[in-house]
């Protein structure tokens, strides 16, 4: 891999500059599915060419992070880059879709929008949070069809500990039917309830007007139920699209709402789901912001949104299939550095948008490098929660868990259910941590994992391993040139100092901190 002779090195670097512009870029863009067909049309109309595909090193890191919230370990990255199989990207995608980490990561995303946290502003309380999160995670893991998932939430009744889906109702900021309707409109239709006309809001709230809450003798248990005596007369209720249903007194109106949203209203349901999933995979939605869908906020491509929603419905609301459809497209697999001069490249998805990683992912990626994991506990509220050592940050159920790291890197507050609650802006405080945290320096310096990596190996092997571990790729020729000056080839490169320094350097690159 490494080039011993300066001459070859120069020739090769000149060649690489001609063929592929940088270490981020791989093959040429080929239409794979309907997503690509739509985008090629869109780009042509705007006079833009698609970016080339990303390199294998970029792909292995991107797909692992985007599907499982976890960077690949060095072995996986190396094997993937070296593999000669033509369909290696599809094989990896399939493997990741089946992984436990996939379930961890996507339940974190759903827990953000469903506001899974113990306290403030709503009080789900710790044991109900664990139950609710487990239920969500099981749904992701078993790939519960999305329409069934939504129906289960809407129609849920029972104890917050034994029938975890009822925590959907408990996560509203009050028991007021309007508050419940508000979170339903946001979570299932991707619409801002407060922008609806008053009558439409009232109409939706009526479907929740028989929901009641009661305490039991068990501490912090709460039963959510339909009160059959709430109405004494037959009522006619109106769905968000204006169609109506007659409901007799004593009957629970919620199954009718669920039937509508998965029936006549399914286009709204599916559009909101695919749009949000697109946002999670690209950092920007087709209708942007992803949870503000309304006629005045048009999609970047209506055809594309319809295509994805139709595919999702036709697949039986198969979430994993939807993810696969998106990540197998060449649109998703574009290089992060293509169309670099075009200011619209990210708005039109004419390159893979670079953006900072989620707080939890950064935390776990650091653990992957140092081999040292954070421990979590929470004194909010009592009884205290202690999470066993070794748990990934991505897999934490409770948004109230105390962690100054996750707070500083902008994890979702899970207060409102808006996607914008996750704040992925880079701040000076974050840079301070990465550049100069004593804890991080110590973890790097004392890391047993890094020690294994440098014990009894050559300089070149060590440098390659560190690059694979931190950035999932080999150093580029220009990086090699810098490293040759900094860590001379003849010198020894197996000291803790050198290894922890190079690791630290790579952790502080943009490439480590950003999806790319």
């Amino acid at each position: 891999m490494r080039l011993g002779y300066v001459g070859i090195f120069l020739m090769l670097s000149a060649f690489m500059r001609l063929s592929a512009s940088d270490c981020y870029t791989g093959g040429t863009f080929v239409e794979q599915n309907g997503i690509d067909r739509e985008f090629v049309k869109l780009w042509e109309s705007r006079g833009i060419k698609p970016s080339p595909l990303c390199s294998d090193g970029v792909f292995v890191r991107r797909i692992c992070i985007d599907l499982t919230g976890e960077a690949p370990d060095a072995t996986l990255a190396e094997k993937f880059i070296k593999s000669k199989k033509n369909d290696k990207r599809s094989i990896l995608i399939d493997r990741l879709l089946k992984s436990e980490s996939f379930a961890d990561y996507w339940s974190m995303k759903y827990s953000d929008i469903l506001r899974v946290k113990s306290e403030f502003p709503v009080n789900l309380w710790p044991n109900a949070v664990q139950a609710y999160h487990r239920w969500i995670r099981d749904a992701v893991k078993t790939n519960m069809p999305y329409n069934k998932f939504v129906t289960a939430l809407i129609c849920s009744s029972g104890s917050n500990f034994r029938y975890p889906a009822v925590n959907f109702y408990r996560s509203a900021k009050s028991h007021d039917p309007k508050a419940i309707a508000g979170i339903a409109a946001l979570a299932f239709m991707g619409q801002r309830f407060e922008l609806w006309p008053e009558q439409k809001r009232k109409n939706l709230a009526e479907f929740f007007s028989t929901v009641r809450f009661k305490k039991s003798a068990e501490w912090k248990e709460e039963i959510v139920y339909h009160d059959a005596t709430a109405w004494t007369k037959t009522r006619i209720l109106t769905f968000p699209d204006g169609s109506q249903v007659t409901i007799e007194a004593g009957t629970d109106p919620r199954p009718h709402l669920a039937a509508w949203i998965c029936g006549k209203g399914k286009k709204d349901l599916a559009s909101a789901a695919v749009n949000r999933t697109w946002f999670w995979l690209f950092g920007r939605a087709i209708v942007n912001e992803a949870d503000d869908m309304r006629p005045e906020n048009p999609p970047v491509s209506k055809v594309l949104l319809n295509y994805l929603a139709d595919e999702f419905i036709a697949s039986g609301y198969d979430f994993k299939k939807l993810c696969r459809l998106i990540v197998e497209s060449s649109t998703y697999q574009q290089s992060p550095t293509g169309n670099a001069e075009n200011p619209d490249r990210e708005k039109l998805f004419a390159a893979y948008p670079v953006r900072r990683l989620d707080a939890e992912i950064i935390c776990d990626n650091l653990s992957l490098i140092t081999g040292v994991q954070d421990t979590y506990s929470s004194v909010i509220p009592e009884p205290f929660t202690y999470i066993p050592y070794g748990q990934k940050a991505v897999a934490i159920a409770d948004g109230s868990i105390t962690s100054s790291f996750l707070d500083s890197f902008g994890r979702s507050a899970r207060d409102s259910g808006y996607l914008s609650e996750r704040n992925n802006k880079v701040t000076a405080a974050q840079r301070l941590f990465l550049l100069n945290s004593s804890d991080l320096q110590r973890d790097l310096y004392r890391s047993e994992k890094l020690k294994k990596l440098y014990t009894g190996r050559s300089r070149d092997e060590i440098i390659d391993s560190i690059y694979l571990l931190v950035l999932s790729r080999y150093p580029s020729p220009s990086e090699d040139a810098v490293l040759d000056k900094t860590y001379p080839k003849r010198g020894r490169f197996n000291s803790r100092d050198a290894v922890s320094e190079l690791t630290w350097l790579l952790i502080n690159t943009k490439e480590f901190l950003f999806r790319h």
Partner: protein
Amino acid sequence: MNKIVLFIAVMMIAANIHSADALPRARSVIEIWMWGGPSQLDTFDPKPNAGKDYNNGLKAIPTNVPGISICETLPLLAKQADKYSIIRSMTHGINGHETATYMMQTGREPGSGIVFPSIGAMIARAKIENGLYKGKLPAYISLTKNKGRFSECGFLSPRYKPMATGGNPNSGIFQVEGIVARGMTPERIARRKKLLASLDTLGKALPNNQELKDFDSSGDDAYELISGDAAKAFKLDLEPKGVRDRYGRNTFGQACLAARRLVESGVPYITINAQGWDTHKKHFDAMKRQLAEMDQGISALLQDLSERGLLDTTIVWWSGEFGRTPKIDWSEPWNGGRGHYARCFTSVVAGGGFKGGYVVGESDERAENVVSRPVYPANLLGSICELAGLDPDSPLANPMGLDLKVMPESDKGKGRLKEIYKNAQEIKK
């Protein structure tokens, strides 16, 4: 004197504050937070006649202010009573840590579906937005950990979240997470910075990307803190040995010293989160050490601020989320413990426009009930805001677009501690 009047006027114009009441404006606030709830009886509201089941035999001692006595556990603070005022009628009635903390930090009851910001976040924000604080250090700093009871910045931007220093101010080097790291010489920092720039492969490929540019600019800010003078505020070894000793060579004492240094750097809001006050079991064993440290640390802080002419511009307030049960529980497993007690407890304020040497309110003979002048969390916090130049009745900008005020509308001026506000003449002397 004219200069001072002019200065205050300029500050008030800058702060966009009505000058009618001509109140002094504290530059900084030091919050001494007794995490878990300190006993009112064993500190500033002694009840020497209540019997051993209430006071464990602890006596009251006179202070340097005639008519004011405090508990004998605080002999050094007894000599400084002219600098602080004691509120013996604090009350809110919530005995759970998290809700009580929320109330004592925001002035509001939870349950509205909105997480309000803490007083520290609101004051830090006001000082920044009014151009009164432009320092490199964060405007709201926790020594050494955050409270962790709720998100202190509430719905405000994470920018106003307190920076927790981590580390221990009493160790050889006060390692401040991210700012002061052991073994990082200026040469090593400079070398690494240069190397980083040469390995910035993604940045070079995307020179116009805004998010990547933000990474660079926030890195510049971080480096200014790491290598610039601002971080010196944390270098307690720059203090003479005598000064460090005066504060007490323990975590709490040195945190008080660090707070003074941060005040000198202009940091608007500093909180010392003192741990270990939730003493359900063997309360008096814990108090023996903790109260001695607290006595030494706070008395040194007040005296030092005063000698440096900083006390008039620095509010110091001492409180827990509540007090502790007056009646001692001698039974197993408590063995002389005190529970949570929010019906009647004590807070202390000093400096920055608060008069010293006063007692506000009164508790009954066992410190179980407020007898006169109840003070609610919003009264105390509203007063601190007011003296720190943040009008408690002014609008509180929020992303929800709601009509909110810094302190709850219901509080509006009622019950604020006006009886211990200094007037403009007094602050100038």
